[in-house]
């Protein structure tokens, strides 16, 4: 190993004192680090301003309220308090439906990836449901389970379940053959291979499945509530939509979009944590 190579590695691990005279590959400059959020923020501010100006000019009349009108509507809705019931209802549906989907999908995906015969047995159902837009099942669930939260939980569950199953299974199947050979050669038991090689190797795939599941879960809750519900953010959007209260309707849309971004960011954080061993992500 050359001195240069050792330097490179130690630098990457942050153990070398940075010497301004040396042109080593070092920590990115301050601007590089803040470039993405800065440009992003500027872009959003620009669009919001344009939008507000267009609304002020009355370009789309009542059909497109400006950002300020939406914020005011939001403040009013939260002061009145009814919106909390809708948020709590939708949140409960997502939490239960998505929670169950993640647990069931993880277990089924691991089993299907590890035991080929189990996969053969379940493949027909997975293929059937994965190629069907689960939304078409909403009317069916409403007939079977009613218009309360149960029918939405079912739709969210089925929506999020299959991406989790399929990605988890792919993770198990994609275990590097060379690693399995090494483990077998040292006489590792199946249980040890599963715990120490297959499972950790599948984590990135599993988390991708979780992330895709979030999108499906949110689609499920909104569409389910649009079709038939007593409470919920989807129901709120639908009610204000038909009465043309666009500013309040936008509040609902923003709540859904915000939760999606929040959950995805959260999972992204977890993903990064689990992949701290990847040198390109550490930097």
């Amino acid at each position, binding site marked *: 190993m050359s001195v240069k190579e050792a330097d490179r590695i130690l630098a990457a*691990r942050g153990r070398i004192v940075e010497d301004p005279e040396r042109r080593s590959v070092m920590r990115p400059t301050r601007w590089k680090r803040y470039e993405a959020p800065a440009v992003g923020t500027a872009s959003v501010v620009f669009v919001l301003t344009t939008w507000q100006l267009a609304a002020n000019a009355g370009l789309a009349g009542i059909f497109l309220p400006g950002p300020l009108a939406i914020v005011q509507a939001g403040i009013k809705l939260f002061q009145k308090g009814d919106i909390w019931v809708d948020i709590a209802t939708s949140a409960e549906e997502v939490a239960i439906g998505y929670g169950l989907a993640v647990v069931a999908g993880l277990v089924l995906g691991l089993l299907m990836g590890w035991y080929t015969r189990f996969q053969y047995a379940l493949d027909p159902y997975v293929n059937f449901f994965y190629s069907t837009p689960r939304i078409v099942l909403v009317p069916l669930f409403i007939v079977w389970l009613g218009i309360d939260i149960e029918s939405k939980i079912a739709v969210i569950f089925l929506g999020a379940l299959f991406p989790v199953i399929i990605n988890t299974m792919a993770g198990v199947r994609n275990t590097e053959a060379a690693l399995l050979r090494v483990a077998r050669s*040292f006489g590792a038991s199946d249980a040890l291979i599963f715990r120490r090689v297959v499972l950790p190797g599948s984590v990135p795939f599993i988390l991708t499945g979780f992330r895709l599941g979030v999108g499906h879960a949110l689609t499920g809750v909104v569409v389910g509530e649009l079709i038939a519900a007593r409470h919920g953010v989807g129901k709120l959007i639908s009610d204000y939509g038909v009465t043309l209260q666009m500013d309040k309707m936008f509040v609902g849309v923003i709540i859904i979009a915000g939760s999606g971004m929040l959950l995805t960011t959260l999972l992204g954080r977890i993903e990064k944590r689990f992949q701290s061993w990847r040198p390109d992500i550490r930097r």
Partner: protein
Amino acid sequence: MAKLQAQGVAIEYWLARSETLFTAVNGVDLEIPEGEFVAIVGPSGCGKTTFLNAVDGLIPIAAGSLTLDGREIRAPGRDRAVVFQQPGLLPWRTVTGNVIFGVEAQGTMPAKEAKERAQQYIELVGLKGFEDAYPGELSGGMQQRVNLARALLTDPEMLLLDEPFAALDAQTRELMQLELLRIWNKDRKTALFITHDIKEAIYLADRVIVFTKRPGRVKVTIDVDIPRPRTLRVKRDPKFLGYEDQVWESIQEELAGPAERLVAGVPA
């Protein structure tokens, strides 16, 4: 009695795509006494790596007998450890974590003891200071050092090396050969080294075995009478070059088509 004994070993496997039975090696007879370093060379595809896998116990033999210390080899065991061509390191584990993976898989050593002893082997293979580095931060040569340390920590009776330096650049390869001999010289474990590099085989081994083309068997055995410790300089010694010619001619005879003979400089 020899440490490793192979008599009439045949290895076959089923090729799903062409629906045929493929004979990789047929009638391999060889003996490796305790403490000897043996290298197998042969034309590519002659089944030398397949033979090593059978010695490791990863694949079954179709005919003949294969024994280590008189016991038939049926499965991987603690008495053998492989240094693989691909390092096969767990990318989410540090150097230390990877070095202990072998003993962890065998379930023979408490984790605490494994970590302590791993430190010695990490130092032995020259990776001191990199205990907490991840494989993705290491060069190919350093990864192979980890691969070697992992095998050594299991303290095997016999060390199996499957073209461990084939993927390295020429300079790193020579350095690793020198390092391997330095490490091997400490306790001189019985070693079987597979390579397609003739110089490498002669430089490392007490005995070089040339395999025929597929299905492979032992064509000729050449005793390398060069005293140890060997420096890299011996590779330019007339005696060394003589061995090289001898092995090279033997392999040339096995090269398949006229095109390959032409490349090898043999009149068609």
